[in-house]
């Protein structure tokens, strides 16, 4: 692993994304958020604080996931298609270094987008005197770790599948995992030990992105902050899952003829 390789790779992803005006999409989404808040204000905001916060975290979760998937899914396929991969791989770095550097770039782009959206949402809610508490900050932090998982998952899928197929599957997994997990857990109660093992394995392989979404609690003004050990667990799970995803991507990418 070559740590000096990650910064230039990540910077190039960020610069390309900025100049390609990808972040304009974020600005438009942010404008929509403010517009929604304005509409709420127009019809009267009293007693709607929880609803407004709930709507905000739902919109933030949706938009940031879309940005994470779309940014990460095209990185490696675009490098191969545009033949920009050759001069990169001609450098004294490993293909794993390349994957880490590209993932870091995708994560930085996603985080910046997410934080811009958070900032705009916060401004929109502050106008209506919505109170923020510690758990809101924890929500933002946990969500950022969850976005790393989604980026790693999307990039790995794009190594095995076409960009469109990988984006579709990444969306299904990012939005559908909570439902799939519930289904698997319920089904596991009615099968034997081997069936339980199979279900547990499938469940373990799924990205448990719902763990990172504490927005449901964060919207209530009196909800206590999440204990730090839980946040620590989320960080550990996020890192382990992301590295496992990168490892799975590398297994194919390391020997892939380009």
């Amino acid at each position: 692993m070559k740590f000096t390789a990650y910064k230039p790779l990540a910077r190039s992803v960020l610069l390309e994304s900025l100049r390609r005006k990808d972040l304009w999409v974020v600005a438009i989404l942010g404008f929509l958020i403010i517009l929604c808040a304005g509409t709420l204000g127009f019809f009267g905001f009293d007693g709607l604080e929880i609803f407004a916060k709930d709507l905000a975290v739902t919109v933030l979760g949706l938009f940031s996931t879309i940005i994470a998937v779309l940014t990460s899914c095209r990185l490696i396929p675009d490098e191969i298609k545009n033949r920009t991969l050759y001069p990169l791989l001609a450098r004294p770095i490993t293909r794993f270094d390349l994957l880490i550097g590209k993932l870091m770039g995708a994560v930085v782009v996603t985080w910046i987008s997410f934080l811009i959206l958070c900032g705009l949402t916060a401004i929109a809610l502050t106008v209506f005197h919505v109170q923020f508490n510690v758990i809101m900050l924890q929500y933002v932090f946990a969500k950022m770790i969850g976005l790393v998982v989604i980026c790693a998952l999307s990039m790995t899928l794009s190594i095995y599948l076409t960009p469109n197929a990988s984006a579709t599957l990444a969306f299904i997994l990012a939005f559908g995992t909570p439902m799939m997990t519930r289904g698997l857990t319920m089904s596991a109660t009615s099968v034997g030990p081997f069936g339980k093992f199979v279900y547990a394995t499938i469940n373990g392989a799924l990205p448990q992105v719902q763990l990172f979404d504490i927005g449901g609690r964060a919207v209530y003004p009196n909800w206590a902050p999440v204990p730090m050990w839980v946040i620590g667990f989320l960080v550990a799970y996020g890192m382990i899952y992301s590295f496992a995803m990168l490892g799975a991507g590398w297994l194919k990418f390391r020997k892939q003829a380009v």
Partner: protein
Amino acid sequence: MHPAISVENLFVQYKTKKGEIVDAVKDLSFHVQEGEIVGFLGPNGAGKSSTLKVLMGFVNSQSGNASIFGEAAGTPESRKQIGYLPEVAMYYPFLTPLETLTMYGELQGLKGPWLKKEILDLLDLLGIGNSAKKLNRSLSKGMLQRVGIAQSLLGNPKLLILDEVTSGLDPVGRKELRNLLKQRQQDGATLFFSSHELAEVDMLCDRIILMNKGEFVEEKIVASLKDELQTFALVYSNMTSLRGLTDHIVVRDIDKFEARFGTKEAMITAIGRVQAGGGQVLDVVAKEGSLENYFVETVEAAA
């Protein structure tokens, strides 16, 4: 001392989309010594790019060995010593040449003000200093090729592997590039490049390696090859028998003949015969052979 490039019994296969196995390179062996400029020639589909890709680690060989200065080809250690220009130069459209080269330089392990100075010097040397801060997407094909050449020269690598190096360059650019590459050789670099531009190969290379249909055909020292390809013409008067020396005799005029010889020795013998027969030698011409004819004939013979 290890050769700059060593390839031994290399086999490379590809699987087509239909699942068929295609032999791209078959039992290829050659060496490139440090300080040489070697041209890697062959028609389209000969296996040149596949071989270069193995040297860079972009594809894996089925069997055989390839090494760069003694390091297994394709490893980060071997790539530390290589500057590589791909056949089709594409660079990030939304970055500038300065940013692009900074990224490649940093990946190469270079950094700081020294890197920036080297980049700007290289861009100036390649005639695109004024475009250092324009987006790559706004540059012409020739300018992008120069960006590609600049990235391959970053960090003063010991070995330059260049795939179709003159592609997209105008005649002035080609001449400048030739001078630049010659200068790099004088500074100790080894050059290994594939090209279809035989005139460039002729002017630049010390040696050529010829491939066809994935197989090694032959290698030649360019200076010796030029000697081999050189022909000699003798214009003389008086019908003198040159039997045994040449069959190529053309009647130019009444009592004026032109005979062609493959070697200088045959021509000297012929001059002796003409003079002994009372004839006069009117003209002696040495003609350069065509590398293109040699290329076509050799490839056809190998097919």
